[in-house]
């Protein structure tokens, strides 16, 4: 009896010691900053990193600012452009890689490659490919489209690069989901004479839907937070800057270039709320299409 209580006490002691670094780190690095960011969004930035409470002024200013609404719309449009197409293509690649073909590992490695290249380098080469005067796309097709400088195309071009960068990563996740689908299901369907297309919709899709859901949540989040690609491909001198600027690029410019940290914090709080609402909708919607009875 005494032995168990000593063991329990021992466990409590070691448990607290072992979680201490992580918990202290999270409190200092995340929980305090989270509260601080919300406080800052209700404050006015003074010199030397000081803040003065001023109520909802930052939010009032933000909601009256056309640039802010444009950035919000750009961010939402960027999601609409990248998420459905990106996931469709990733699923296509995953299904193809899941068939019995030679060179599967090589194909998989090739599609995954952009994942290990820093977005800064990826953005740089695409900026060159999309260049209006000398870019390879315009030269090959003999056109003169301002892929990154025309307000009508700039967000599409950024979306293409985002999709291209993430196909392999998403396909690897979906492939892992596909490989869990039991082969006997397909054998049974073959015996029943179901076509491959029918099998895809009635076996593959429902079975892979939990993975699909995870990928979708992750993609929506990363698209709502997009920064590096747009920051690298659309510089400050670009005439289409206003048509490509995402919420996070606006946040970066306001906080660290213009130095208005209070206003910038209001932007980031808005973005977090936006992500929250989208995620809640996703979890609410998943009941209709995600199948957990595996």
């Amino acid at each position, binding site marked *: 009896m005494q032995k168990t209580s000593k063991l329990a006490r*021992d*466990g*409590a*002691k*070691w*448990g*607290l010691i*072992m979680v201490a*670094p*992580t*918990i202290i780190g*999270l*409190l200092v*690095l*995340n*929980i305090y*900053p989270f509260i601080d960011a919300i406080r*800052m969004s209700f404050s006015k930035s003074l010199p030397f*990193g000081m803040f003065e409470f001023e109520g909802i002024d930052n939010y009032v200013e933000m909601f009256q600012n056309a640039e802010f609404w444009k950035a919000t719309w750009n961010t939402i449009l960027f999601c609409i452009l990248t998420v459905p197409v990106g996931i469709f293509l990733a699923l296509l*690649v995953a299904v*193809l890689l899941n*068939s019995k*073909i030679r060179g599967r*590992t090589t194909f998989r*490695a090739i*599609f995954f*490659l952009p*994942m*290990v*290249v*820093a*977005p*800064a*380098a990826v953005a*740089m*080469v*695409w900026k*060159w*490919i999309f*260049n209006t005067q*000398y870019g390879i796309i315009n030269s090959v097709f003999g056109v003169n489209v301002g892929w990154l400088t025309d307000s009508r195309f700039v967000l599409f071009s950024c979306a293409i690069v985002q999709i*291209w960068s993430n*196909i392999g990563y998403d396909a*690897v*996740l979906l492939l*892992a989901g596909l490989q869990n689908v039991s082969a006997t299901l397909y054998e049974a369907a073959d015996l029943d004479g179901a076509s*491959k297309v029918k099998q895809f919709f009635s076996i593959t899709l429902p079975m892979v839907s939990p993975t699909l859901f*995870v990928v979708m949540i992750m993609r929506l989040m990363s698209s709502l*937070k997009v*920064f*590096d690609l747009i920051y*690298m491909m659309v*510089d400050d001198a670009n005439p289409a800057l206003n048509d490509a600027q995402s919420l*996070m690029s606006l946040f970066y410019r306001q*906080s*660290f270039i213009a130095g208005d940290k209070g206003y910038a*914090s209001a932007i*980031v*709080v808005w973005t*977090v709320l936006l992500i929250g609402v989208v995620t809640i909708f996703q979890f609410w919607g998943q009941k209709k299409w995600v199948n957990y009875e595996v």
Partner: protein
Amino acid sequence: MNTSMKSSKRLTTTLTYVVLILGSILMIFPFVWMLLTSFKTQAESMAIPPQILPSSWALDNFTTALASLPFLNLYVNTGLLIVFRVLCAVIFSSMAGYAFAKLQFPCKNLLFGIVLVQMMLPSQIFITPQYLMLARLGLTNTIFALVFPGLVSAFGTFFLRQTYLGIPNEIAEAAYLDGCNKWQTFTKVMFPLTGSSCAALAIFTAVFAYSDLMWPLICNTDLNMMTLSAGLSTLNGQYTTNFPVLMAGSFLAMIPMVILYLLFQKQFIQGIAMTGGK
């Protein structure tokens, strides 16, 4: 199997190959084009119609890129950033993950709640306060500043907790009977069983530390203390139209990770599939 089914099967296979090969070309082309451009002179890069191959394989653009950016520092800084973040993530998350999975202690659920909250919030909301903390301590433009937001990992804790939950309790109990205390059970018996999960977490942490742009750009403004990504973005502003130099710089920045990837391709992909969908 009758002939029509056989031929339709062959058609499916051919189509699969065609799509995958076309896709692969689209994935590789930008990198090939980057490399080809990096050897061209500026005039060659602007030739109309485009010149595919450079007329000579001169290294001039690489020399220019190396002279414009302190690449040696960038490699070292990026390397240190990755090493420290990986060590912190693996060590602290293993400890916390084990405790959350296998030990009973006060406030366990509340403390785990903190981990979950961090995982749900996008990292950008922490950035300004994190920067102000560093600035007040006078620690900007240091390696510590680069590592700072990744000193602990909520995701790593969550991920390794799942791993430890999958290890049967009997193993730990056997260790107690052999006279190990809780700490020894962890270091000598349990931790060594989590090798593949720790490797997955290490790869995941390394890839994301390497790609991150916003934080390194903010915390270290001194060129000598930047990471490869941040350095590349300053090169972007410096040579707005000299694409051969920009391509040479990009190639130099991406090559270390690509070599690691080619060497450990299987581990990279497995690691990402395991940590899947953060």
